């Protein structure tokens, strides 16, 4: 089973960069896939990779990261202006950021139109004790 956790932009907009990254990494370390509204700043994406590297251990092997963002080339002038205006007023809420633990997400393939998320094969065994039935004589 794969668990997704939605992080609305309002949850992180007042946080410092360090707190944002720590919050996202905390969720990922719980083996959940983060679906964050909006995107991190460019330097925050680099910081996220840096902090991820600092925290790599035998249990935590890193992250898979992908950002979906509206293709500005396909927007007309009005849409671009509205988007820029909304960014100034409300922060960079456009698009969506997906962050998954490398132990769960094998890879994320991204092109402008679609995102494919490949998960690792589940190695977990069925829950519950094994029952053996003996034939009654």
């Amino acid at each position: 089973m794969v668990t997704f956790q939605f992080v609305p932009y309002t949850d992180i907009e007042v946080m410092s960069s360090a707190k944002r990254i720590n919050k996202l990494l905390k969720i990922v370390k719980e083996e959940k896939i983060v679906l964050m509204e909006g995107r991190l700043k460019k330097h925050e994406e680099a910081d996220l990779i840096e902090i991820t590297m600092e925290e790599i251990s035998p249990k935590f092997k890193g992250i898979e990261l992908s950002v979906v963002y509206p293709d500005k080339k396909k927007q007309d002038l009005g849409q671009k202006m509205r988007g820029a205006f909304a960014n100034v007023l409300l922060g960079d809420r456009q698009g969506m950021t997906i962050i998954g633990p490398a132990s769960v997400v094998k890879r994320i393939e991204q092109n402008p139109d679609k995102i494919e998320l490949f998960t690792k094969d589940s190695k977990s065994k069925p829950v519950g004790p094994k029952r053996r039935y003996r034939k009654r004589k």
Partner: protein
Amino acid sequence: MVKKFLKNLFSKLKFNPFARKSHVKLGLYGPPNGGKSTLANRVCLDWLGEEMSSVSHIAHETREIKIKEQVNIKNKKGKELTFSLVDTPGIATKIDYEDFLKRGMKKKEAKARAKEATKGVIDSIKWLDEMECVVVVLDATKDPYSQVNITIIGNLQARNIPVLIAANKIDLKRANMDVIKAAFPQYEIVGVSAKYGKNLEEFYEQLFKVAK
């Protein structure tokens, strides 16, 4: 400190009196196994007659920053460009020592390599601020839309660092320049084969344009 502040200020204004354009710090950046060290070796062989880095099919062969000072190249018009060539460890978002075990390494060796590789990624990111020009080396046989590539290029753009994209491994049939051009249409892209020295003349010409 004051000099650094002024340098940052002028770089934001796209005017930098401290910059010595004839001698730049040129970084090779990109994901692991894209061919950064192979390209660094090719450049050094072409202009200095010696290699600078070891290469391997196993990812994260380069785990620390390597610098070759005073690399002097000339173009067809006789212009010269001198740079310090900085070969950086590949930037990745995950490192699993078990991947190295699968490539035949012993457990102790694999764990040590993974630990060094994580430090290498951190160093690469920290060194971004030191660069004056960057060649992003991508494997032309792989999907260019990975977030690592986008993050590297986005961070260089945010720092106003000139970028040349080298699409490496064009000698392989699976190489697809069109996909890379479509992914990064705003950048100069040159296809090369660092291993076989293919299209290096074009690479050097583009380097002059980007680094000037």
